[in-house]
Every structure is written in structure tokens, then in C-alpha cells.
């Protein structure tokens, strides 16, 4: 069984930092994970002093497999992961101006990204992307989950895409619980090949041309519980062959492949402030999704910020949880009650 080799990436060079940029980690660790190393190469990203990572990352020159792969993430047990909205401060974020590429571009077969914030401020006219896959042969599985992928460049957009998948037969992409916004296109593949796509519970907003574009593909394409609102056209799924499965995907326009979820404007916590958590008052996405906890290809049961999905699932990256029932709120209430009790005990003792 492959050994996890964890290296700490922290632009602020806090205690125990191995690399001060993800790009340097990639350069320092690249190699054959399948041979004598028999390794899962893990970059655990931190941001101890508030500094963003500003060098674009290309993942190439490695050898990986389904059990010996690359994992880049923020550990939710630490405090450096976003809370489901774009956050600065002590939250790890990759902020670059990459042209003709992604903030992260990967030519590798087996890559896992979890809990990252990617922002490309490069010119929209020069193919600035959030994540770009360039792996082009063999077998590959890409996983992207719980990421916030934001386009902040200006200009007339050309191939300005949040997640660009240059796919091929043998390529599998699992993309779930992400928030992708302010691009020309949120997620795109037009490769006319036979990959396998599992695109579940993503929120895609404010993309000027399309939310999700899959055109002319064979293979397997399953879209479930995706929320597209405020895009030029929410879904473009023309000419699709192969195995297709469209389950409870919501659109603000009439392009959803699930007609009952057409023309649904979702209420977000703070749409103008780019907070795409569901509002308490929402009636479009809340309890309108499908339980994927036993999905045959991609089973999960939480949302972008780690809240457990329960009951009838919500559509999109966020599962609405009433404030009073959040674990954090309960913990705080518990501490407050204990403090009150201690104070009353102390007062009681004083008057004995």
C-alpha cells in the first residue's frame, strides 16, 4: 500500500513548512510515484500569515496511478480552508494571472484537489482559466471537490473557463461540491471523445456565456444536483452520445436537462457579495435534489463546507443548515451554558 508523504506548503513559511509555494512543491516532489517511491504525494496547504500563493502551478513530468497519486488540499482539521465563500486572511488561496492556462494546469493522470481557492486575474481575452486538464492519453482520474474557482480578469472573453477538461477516452473526472463563478464558461468539454464525467452538486454562477458545456461527447456523462444561475445560458448539452444521466439539475433559464427544474431563480445568502450559500428563504434549490450518498460512481454525504447532507438533499454546493443547528453554534452555546453554570456556582459558594 502506498505511503502518504505529506509536505507542508505555506507562503508565510510558518513552523514546519517544506515549501513556500505550491509551484516549488511540484518542482521538488515531481517524479515516479509508482516505482520505488510507492507514494501518495500530498501537498497540505496552509496560510499562517495571510499571504496568498501567487505562482501558477503546472503539474507535469510525474508518473501516477490510481493508488499512487497527487493530492493537493487544505486539511479541514486545520484552519486554512475557506468556509464556502472566497476568503482572504489566513485561508490558503492561489491567486495568479495565468494566460492560456489555469491557475493549476495538470498533465497528470491521477490528481486530487480538495478545499482550494483558485482565482485567475489574467486577461479574459487570453484564455485565462481556473483549472485546466491537459493530460491526453492513457488512463486518468481527476477529482476536484470543495473548491472555489473564481475568474477576476477583464476583457472580451475567449476560452475563459473555470474548469477546462481536454478529455480523452480513458479519462474520468469527478467534480463535486465546487463553487465556480465569474467566468465566460463554468465547466467545459467539447473534445468529442469518450471520457467519463461525474459532475455533481456544483454551483455555477455569473458565467457570461455558459454555466456547463458538454457537447458531442460519447462515453459516460452524469450531471446530478448541479445549480446554474445567472449565466448566459446555464447548460449546453447538445449532440451528446454515449451514456447520459441528468438528475435534478437546476437552471434559472430554460436550459436544464431536467425540465421540472427549469426557470428556478435561487435565493443565495448574499448574491451581490458572492456568498452562494443558500438563503433560509430559498424554495428553489432547498430540498429539491437527489440523495447521492449511495451513488455507484461517486458517493458522498457532505457539502462544500463540510456540513452533512441529510433528508432530501439541496441542489448545488451548499446544503442549507439552519444556524441554530450548526455544530459550531451548538459548541458555542454549550460553552456559554457552562460558563453561566460556573459563575452561578461561584456566586453560590461566595454566599454560603
Amino acid at each position, binding site marked *: 500500500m502506498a505511503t502518504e508523504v505529506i509536505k507542508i506548503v505555506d507562503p508565510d513559511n510558518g513552523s514546519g513548512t517544506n515549501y*513556500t509555494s505550491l509551484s516549488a512543491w511540484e518542482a521538488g516532489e515531481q517524479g515516479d510515484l509508482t516505482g520505488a517511491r510507492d507514494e501518495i504525494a500530498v501537498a497540505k496547504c496552509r496560510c499562517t500569515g495571510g499571504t496568498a500563493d501567487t505562482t501558477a502551478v503546472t503539474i*507535469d513530468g*510525474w508518473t501516477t496511478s490510481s493508488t499512487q497519486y497527487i493530492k493537493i488540499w487544505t486539511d479541514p482539521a486545520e484552519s486554512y480552508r475557506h468556509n464556502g465563500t472566497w476568503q482572504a486572511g489566513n485561508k490558503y488561496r492561489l491567486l495568479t494571472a495565468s494566460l492560456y492556462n489555469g491557475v493549476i494546469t495538470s498533465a497528470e493522470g491521477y490528481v486530487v484537489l480538495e478545499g482550494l481557492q483558485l482565482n485567475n486575474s489574467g486577461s479574459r481575452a487570453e484564455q485565462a482559466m481556473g483549472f485546466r486538464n491537459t493530460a491526453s492519453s492513457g488512463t486518468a482520474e481527476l477529482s476536484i471537490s470543495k473548491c472555489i474557482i473564481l475568474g477576476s480578469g477583464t476583457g472580451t472573453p475567449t476560452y475563459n473557463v473555470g474548469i477546462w477538461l481536454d478529455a480523452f477516452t480513458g479519462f474520468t473526472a469527478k467534480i463535486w461540491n465546487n463553487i465556480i463563478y465569474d467566468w465566460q464558461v463554468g465547466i467545459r468539454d467539447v473534445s468529442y471523445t469518450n471520457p467519463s464525467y461525474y459532475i455533481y452538486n456544483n454551483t455555477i454562477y455569473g458565467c457570461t456565456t455558459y454555466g456547463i458545456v458538454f457537447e458531442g461527447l460519447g462515453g459516460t456523462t452524469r450531471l446530478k444536483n448541479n445549480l446554474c444561475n445567472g449565466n448566459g445560458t446555464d447548460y449546453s448539452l447538445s449532440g451528446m452520445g454515449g451514456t447520459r444521466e441528468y438528475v435534478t439539475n437546476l437552471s434559472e433559464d430554460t436550459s436544464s436537462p431536467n425540465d421540472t427544474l427549469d426557470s428556478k431563480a435561487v435565493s443565495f445568502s448574499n448574491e451581490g457579495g458572492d456568498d452562494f450559500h443558500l438563503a433560509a428563504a430559498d424554495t428553489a434549490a432547498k430540498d429539491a435534489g437527489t440523495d447521492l450518498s449511495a451513488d455507484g460512481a461517486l458517493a458522498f454525504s457532505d457539502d462544500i463546507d463540510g456540513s452533512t447532507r441529510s433528508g432530501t438533499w439541496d441542489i448545488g454546493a451548499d446544503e442549507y443548515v439552519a444556524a441554530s443547528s450548526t455544530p459550531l453554534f451548538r459548541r458555542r452555546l454549550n460553552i456559554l451554558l457552562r460558563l453561566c453554570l460556573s459563575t452561578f456556582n461561584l456566586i453560590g459558594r461566595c454566599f454560603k
Partner: protein
Amino acid sequence: MAQILVKAIDATHSDATKDRRGCYKRGMPVVVMPDSHTWGLDERPPKFVVLKLPGVPVEKVKKYIEPEREDTADADGRYQVFRRRLWKFRLDDMPTAALRKLRGNGELIIKVGDYADKYDYTWTQVRSYLRNLKTNTNETASL
């Protein structure tokens, strides 16, 4: 105010195209950081060395971390990466004293312009070891 992190050992891949396009080779610049930057535990020999250029703006040396791209665009108008980096320091051709220093504390201080503090070499000396891999010529530009 720049420091250049330079790969000090070759990465290799059995696929020749992937090896050229993806693998960092000894002497290739990886990232550029400001003078004030402090490096992590693995950003030193044997994997890396650092060339310090006090007082030089980061923007001036960013070109050294660009990849070498194909001459012609693909169907989508993109110039694909041909080689991981366009530039490479010929570390093994540097003077023995420089190599000894790089093997030791892993850094060289390079004087540029009117920098008046302690230094190991001048930019004029070092740039002749910085090779453009596309044209196969050494750097002649000032900083």
C-alpha cells in the same frame, strides 16, 4: 527585490516528450520571490539552490520562470509548452568556488546595479551562465 529558486537536481521521465515538457532539470529557475522571502525546509540543497539579486524588482526576473513554448499555435490559438523552462543556469559550468558555495549554504548573492553590500558575483558574471535553451545563447541583458 528578487530571489530565484533554482532546481539543483534533474527530474526524469521515461517518456521523452514528457521528460522535456514536464521535468525540471538542474539549473532551471522554478519560482521568483522578493528579497524578504524566507524559504521552506525543502527549498535548499540538495533539491534547490537560491540566487539572490538584492534590489532587483521581482517583475524584472519573472521572465526566467516562463516555459519554452511551441512556435505555432494549436487550433484553439494556444502556444503549447515545449520545454518546462526557456532558461537554465549552467550550474556545472560555474567557477568551482561558486559551486562549492552552492553546495554549502545553497545560495549566491549577485550584485546588480548600485547594490553596495557583500556579494559573491556580479550579474554580468552570472548572466553568462544563464542559457536560453531555444536560441542556445547566453543571457546578455542587464537587470
